[in-house]
């Protein structure tokens, strides 16, 4: 997640970093009949179903339990297999969607060519979800946290539109998000040398979802979903989120929050020590 930026992506980066609506620069999503905007994933779909993870790769998971994502207190960092936990666990609501970065076919290159967000040439698009942070449950937010908002970088699947996503925001519910600022994580992972001056501004302005750790209650009291994870992985993460919170009907937001709060207390990262 630490790609260097070029051309149009940089323009978006500057807009985001400057707090300007990037929509104006990159457009608000094509209405032309391109692969990016075809109506296959109906606008009537719920917000998160449109963002369902289109996993197209083979690989292995590096940790088994959502506990590995809980921010660590001072002096504690790496979790299982060296996996670095999130910097912050926040509770909040998605209040906006902005265009982020798009890349075309990469062919034999290590670095794909950045293309305008609306371009039919785009092979992959990364949108920014604007999240209103209602509470920092554990860890801390710093860089990129302004006006109680962060921008979370997520893949926008083919066939969805920014307009469609925005129109469905009322179905986004509220959730718990494991996040870290993109530049901070790159620095922590020793990748900062790859980040050129201009792309550093972009990375400083956006947050990354850590460990596919986004857990959402679409309606009050409804079982949580983990829309960035594949179905089996989502079940696994929710089951491991404290056995006491996993019921046959699924894990609830209150249950998961309580379980994660407990873990944050153990790790020394809870923001409300009185709750420990």
């Amino acid at each position, binding site marked *: 997640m630490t790609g260097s930026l070029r051309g149009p992506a940089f323009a978006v980066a500057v807009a985001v970093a400057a707090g300007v609506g990037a929509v104006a620069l990159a457009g608000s999503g094509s209405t032309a009949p391109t692969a990016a905007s075809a109506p296959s994933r109906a606008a009537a779909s719920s917000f998160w179903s449109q963002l369902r993870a289109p*996993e197209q790769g083979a690989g292995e998971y590096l940790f088994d339990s959502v506990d590995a994502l809980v921010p660590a207190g001072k002096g504690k960092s790496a979790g299982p297999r060296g996996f670095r936990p999130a910097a912050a666990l926040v509770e909040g609501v998605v209040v906006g969607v902005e265009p982020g970065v798009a890349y075309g076919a*990469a062919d034999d290159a290590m670095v794909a060519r950045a293309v305008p967000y609306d371009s039919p040439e785009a*092979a992959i698009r990364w949108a920014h979800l604007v999240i209103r942070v209602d509470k920092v449950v554990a860890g801390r937010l710093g860089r990129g946290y302004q006006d109680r908002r962060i921008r979370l970088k997520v893949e926008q699947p083919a066939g969805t539109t920014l307009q469609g996503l925005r129109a469905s925001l009322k179905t986004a519910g509220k959730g718990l998000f494991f996040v870290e600022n993109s530049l901070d994580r790159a620095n922590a992972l020793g990748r900062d040398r790859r980040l050129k001056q201009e792309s550093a501004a972009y990375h400083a302005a956006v947050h990354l979802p850590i460990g596919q750790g986004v857990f959402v209650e679409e309606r009050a009291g409804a079982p949580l979903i983990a829309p960035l994870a594949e179905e089996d992985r989502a079940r696994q993460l929710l089951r491991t989120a404290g056995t006491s919170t996993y019921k046959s009907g699924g894990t609830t937001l209150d249950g998961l929050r309580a379980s994660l709060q407990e873990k944050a207390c153990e790790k020394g990262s809870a923001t409300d020590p009185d709750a420990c």
Partner: protein
Amino acid sequence: MTYFKRRAGRAVLGAVLALGAVGGLAPGAQANDFGYPSGCCSFADNGQHWYNDDSLESRTKSAFRYAMGNLDAQSVMSDAYDASPNASTDVEAYDAYYVDTWDLDWDGSTTGYNLYGYAKCVKAIAPTPSEDDWRCDQYEVRFDLRDVDGFSTDQRRALACHEVGHTVGLSHSTESSSCLRTGAHTTVKYSAHDVSHLYTRYGPRLSKPMSGGGAK
């Protein structure tokens, strides 16, 4: 570009074979999705699957060729090497020590999912009134040598089988007999359920593509 056409005879035969395959594999009926957006990946644009793997290093290329041969052996699709790759070559395969290509998290240090390989449709064909499925004119398949370097021959073949499966629309599988399952494994074949999916969409194979020509 869209050689593939629906024909009643093919559809009937495909349905019969698919029912047979699925009927014999009741638990596998939910094994994986097929196509997009019900599953992960767009269908191939037709039943002829042209590929170019010129830039692969020898071990990866050997595995990739094995996987393409395996797909061809299902007698559903026709696979052939494309010596003159262009924007409509169905699959272009690459390998490298990837770090952040496409901003993907290749080593899993952020997502928690270490990618061995990845198949991406880079030329999608959106649904039309006459064809309501997403199809793909060109996939790029990438193998991360950081992982592949430590793989056995069968692990490399399993990975190639997995990624090639995505290029024809197959999603991840829950079956142990399918190379579309996730994680490091040595299953180098498609399951009967996978093949039944392919047959309903592409089968039966009509003819082998002509060398150096034909619809891509």
